[in-house]
């Protein structure tokens, strides 16, 4: 019997064949923590008797969740990270304004075949580059800092095959929302998700990152995609090598295979209070909105900016609506600036924030008022997610977000003429 992509990567990393169900301890190639999880990891590291980080060159620290700091208490936690990094020789340190942790990892660090863990649930995003990448808690980050290793149960795989070419204004975000609506929030628990099929092959790497980013919203351990020429080109253009691009065997056994045809898919929306509460946008069309958020590790890349800007160009957003635009990284911000997208956003009436997580997680930026409705391109709409338990959060694509910002209500972008 052949091996799945997940089994292949883990077998390759261990130097022996392992299969779903095996309990393994494996070396970690890359470990990430941010200001929401690193401080507790540092505390645990000390408590477990840690003195020197085993492989400082494999560690990435990012200050993105409350960046810049909003209070003295938060500043103390940031300082704790900086001090620890310089004490331990952690050079991959991204301070305030560099970007969202996952984007930075994708832009600069991850390679196919790597074992990547991060103190953040959306670390599963790097499966899009053919890495085995998953989120862990702070104490596990500490354990990796100390030992260089982690334990895993080799997961079974839920294979998701997507076929058909996407209709105009229907994006990878709509595809993944649709999939989550079918699979449900716990449909992939303990499993690796692997996306394949013609639609995924046609997608840019940026679009694939959006798919993999949301694997955890189905409970998935990682969101894998077989690396191909596009993956290698993405890496090459950012000065990186091909890593170990592996493929699953043809006769591999998957726990389940689900087939989706997206050739007639309508733009999708996840209504509060759960990500799997997904509907075609037409079912919630007309609902008045107060705030639009174009950002997060799901949808704040260049392609997302370009799409939103193409809709907003030469127009003004609705006077009742605030639209917050947050680029995923400094690199994305600079490129958007060079392409004139920043000007489009500012002229349309948007607010541009520095790269980071602030608005997404409701720590200190863009917190809605009770009773308000937010349309967001991020990945979670849980109660209280953006800092206010009485606000309603709807999730959608950058196209739906931009068109709705213009009309002031949730609007189907499909019929929209740019």
């Amino acid at each position, binding site marked *: 019997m052949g091996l799945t992509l997940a089994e292949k990567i883990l077998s390759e990393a261990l130097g022996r064949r392992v299969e779903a169900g095996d309990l393994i301890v494996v070396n970690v190639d890359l470990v990430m923590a941010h200001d929401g999880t690193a401080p507790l990891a540092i505390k645990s590291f000390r408590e477990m008797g840690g003195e020197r980080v085993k492989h400082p060159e494999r560690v990435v620290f990012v200050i993105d969740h409350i960046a810049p700091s909003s209070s003295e208490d938060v500043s103390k936690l940031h300082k704790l990270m900086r001090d620890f990094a310089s004490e331990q020789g952690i050079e991959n340190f991204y301070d305030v304004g560099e970007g969202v942790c996952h984007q930075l990892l994708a832009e600069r660090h991850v390679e196919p075949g790597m074992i990547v863990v991060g103190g953040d649930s959306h670390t599963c995003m790097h499966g899009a580059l053919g890495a085995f990448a998953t989120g862990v808690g702070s104490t596990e980050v500490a354990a990796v800092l100390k030992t260089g290793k982690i334990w895993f149960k080799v997961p079974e795989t839920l294979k998701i095959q997507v076929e058909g070419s996407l209709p105009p204004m229907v994006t990878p975000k709509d595809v993944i929302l649709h999939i989550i609506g079918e699979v449900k929030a716990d449909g992939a*628990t303990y499993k690796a998700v692997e996306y394949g099929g013609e639609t995924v092959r046609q997608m840019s790497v940026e679009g694939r990152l959006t798919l993999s980013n949301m694997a955890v919203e189905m409970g998935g351990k990682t969101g894998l995609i077989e690396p191909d020429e596009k993956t290698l080109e993405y890496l090459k253009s950012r000065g990186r090598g091909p890593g170990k691009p592996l493929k699953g065997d043809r006769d591999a056994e998957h726990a389940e295979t689900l087939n989706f045809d997206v050739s007639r898919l309508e733009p999708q929306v996840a209504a509060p209070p759960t990500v799997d509460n997904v509907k075609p946008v037409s079912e919630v069309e007309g609902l008045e909105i107060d705030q639009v958020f174009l950002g997060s590790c799901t949808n704040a890349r260049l392609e997302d900016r370009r799409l939103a800007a193409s809709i907003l160009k030469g127009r003004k957003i609705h006077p009742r609506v605030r639209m917050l635009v947050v680029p995923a990284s400094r690199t994305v911000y600079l490129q958007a600036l060079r392409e004139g997208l920043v000007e489009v956003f500012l002229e349309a009436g948007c607010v541009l924030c520095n790269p980071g997580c602030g608005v997404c997680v409701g720590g200190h930026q863009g917190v809605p008022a009770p009773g308000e409705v937010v349309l967001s391109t991020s990945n*979670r709409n849980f109660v209280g997610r953006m800092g206010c338990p009485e606000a309603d959060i709807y999730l959608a694509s950058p196209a739906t977000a931009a068109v709705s910002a213009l009309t002031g209500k949730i609007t189907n972008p499909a019929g929209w003429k740019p």
Partner: protein
Amino acid sequence: MKVKGQAWKFGDDINTDIIISGKYKFKTLDMRELAKHAMEALDPKFSEKVKPGDILVAGKNFGCGSSREHAPRVLKELGIGVIIAKSFARIFYRNAVNVGLPVVESPEASARISEGDQVEVDLEKGLIRNLTKGETYSFKPIPPALMEILREGGLVEYLRKAGDYKL
């Protein structure tokens, strides 16, 4: 390892934002302070009502959402002795074991136990006794490797003693 206490019942898909809102986690590492806000979106008085040894009983996919380890930590801080659920979100399950908070999957117990029931859990034997209803439910025992981490009280103590994984 045995745990005995009163059951507190919750529904399906209790996410980490409900267990402890993200707005608190960035502000302090003081778990006693954070624990005051545990479950407050569903029950503002929860942290005052629970007693050490009490047992949390929930439906499916408990702990879904973020990787914040603060979630199992605040529950442990309040003295919760074990969480019984129909199923757990993956990261929460790992985190709970890593902070030394036992987690047990039992669809039967999750359905049968009512709020306020006196419950006793034997982790090694894989048995749950509902003392109020006079019923017994069994569950697939926690794998021995993870049981070792739990017995030490979490990954911190485990690695402090062992220095490295002994799995």
